[in-house]
């Protein structure tokens, strides 16, 4: 084999390997990605993967509440979903453990400036699969006070949960719930960080179906949409960073 064909063979070999997430090959071409890799995935195997779908508008109409839907298409054994924003004073947006649920979650988040919004899904073999999109924005969402912080009304309703289940095929349900909470980031002058730290969804026997750990950038009075691999009523329990707890039983869908 001459040198040229050796080189070609080596190049083909390189092309055939799964895309390792070096800073240079970030499909979103973000200047922050090298730092994100070091900070959030030290020593881990990270690949960009089109099966990890992040759906969000290309412009944040509401910097305080920009919708995002994360889901996997044909990626199995996802144990953890980490949602991150590169250009944000607080990069982690939400950490989701779909124990008996699909690796899919819908919610709203605060946008401080134009940023990639990414989902990193860790599969059972320890590999992180990353997908994402850019969201442009007028911005300022993370450093603005919550609407709730300006009004005493929320205090009497703090931790109230409104939730509903929808049957989605055999032993599968969409759960949507809203929690009354200001979700203050701590980055608005004079208003300390005050946000929901953890939420657990369990079945009637107390088995965990899904667990999520929101970070400060999740929008005020958050609404979460989850896809549970479970039929029947569930319990939603959570706590915030000040130790306030909330819980609610969501009845099985009518029909």
């Amino acid at each position, binding site marked *: 084999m001459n040198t040229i064909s050796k080189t070609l063979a080596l190049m083909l070999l390189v092309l055939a390997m799964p895309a390792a997430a070096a800073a240079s090959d970030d499909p979103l071409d973000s200047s922050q990605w090298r730092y994100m890799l070091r900070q959030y995935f030290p020593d881990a195997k990270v690949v960009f993967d089109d099966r990890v779908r992040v*759906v*969000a*508008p290309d*412009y944040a*109409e*509401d910097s305080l*509440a*920009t*919708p*995002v*839907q994360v889901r996997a298409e044909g990626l199995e054994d996802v144990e953890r979903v980490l949602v991150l924003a590169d250009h944000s004073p607080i990069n982690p947006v939400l950490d989701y453990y779909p124990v008996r649920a699909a690796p899919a979650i*819908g*919610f*709203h988040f605060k946008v401080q400036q134009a940023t990639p919004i990414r989902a990193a899904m860790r599969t059972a073999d320890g590999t992180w699969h990353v997908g994402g999109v850019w969201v442009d924005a*007028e911005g300022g969402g993370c450093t603005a006070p919550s609407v709730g912080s300006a009004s005493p009304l929320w205090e009497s309703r703090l931790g*109230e*949960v*409104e*939730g*509903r289940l*929808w049957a*989605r095929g055999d032993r599968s349900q*969409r759960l*949507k*719930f*809203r929690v009354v909470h200001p979700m203050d980031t701590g980055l608005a002058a004079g208003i300390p960080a005050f946000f929901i730290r953890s939420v657990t969804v369990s079945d009637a026997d107390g088995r965990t179906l899904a667990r999520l750990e929101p970070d400060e950038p999740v929008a005020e009075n958050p*609404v979460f*949409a989850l896809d549970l691999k479970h039929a029947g009523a569930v319990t*939603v329990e959570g706590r915030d960073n000040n130790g306030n707890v909330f819980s*609610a*039983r*969501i*009845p099985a869908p009518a029909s």
Partner: protein
Amino acid sequence: MSRGALSGCLLLAGLLVMPGAMAASRYYDIEPVEVAADTYVVFGAQENFNDANHGAIANTGFIVTDEGVVVIDTGPSRLYGQALREAIGRITEQPVVQVYISHAHPDHFLGNNAFDDVPIAALPGTIDAVRAVGADLAGNLYNLVGAAMRGTSAVVPDQTVEAGTTATFGDHRLQLLAASGHTAADLMIMDTTTGVLFAGDIAFHDRAPTTPNADIDAWRAVLAQTREREFAVLVPGHGPSTPDDAPLSQTGDYLAWLVDRFTQDANDGMSAAEVMFQPLPERWARLAVQPGEYRRSVSHLYPAIEQSALPERTE
């Protein structure tokens, strides 16, 4: 002050004015279209704000009377307002004597800088909104449009329109109709002399309606009432004018469809991002600025509808 210093000041003033005048014609190609006797419309681009259209996306209009020119909406920037005024000057020697602002959205009133020597009238709700958020709206448009915005600030209208009154300019009698729905205060102007109805953003035509400050029920009620009116020409806030009520029915049908779709999606448990990225039916996909405007409407309208599909409080 010495004569030398004075002429220096005049020279400086001349330098300051001239580039502005040149810049106005460089950014904005204002071509008034005569839609009825004495009545002209400058049609905006059927696009979102960008640095190619320099913010000129809304229709502006003017009526030439024997007692001066009445301007309806001033466009997105000082330079647009100047270019509009120059275009009026090419059509008539009559001075501009009155400005009406249809509502407090940046594509309609930020040209006020060029008319600050003329009474600028608006509904009380419009005046309040320009005072409260005008500077933010101008700042946002600087970000979206860029250099064409220079010298633009939010000039608060200095004259209040009383709902249901009539104003007369020469032989043109203008009915000043107070409505709401697109925003908290939407002024429509009916010229009973020519039969031209300036509907402002109550009516969109072949361009998806915008909903950041909308009250959909109120808006649909106004559209239904307005369809009962007699008019010869309808000038929508965006899109071509028509001799019929097509812009009114199209806007009403779109808003009805939007609410029905969001209500159904909320009752199916869909997340806001899922709702945003659904395909649109052909009739609504082919409107200008789609699917972007539809996606903005998800942000504006879906949260409340989504919440109403959840039980009041789960125990």
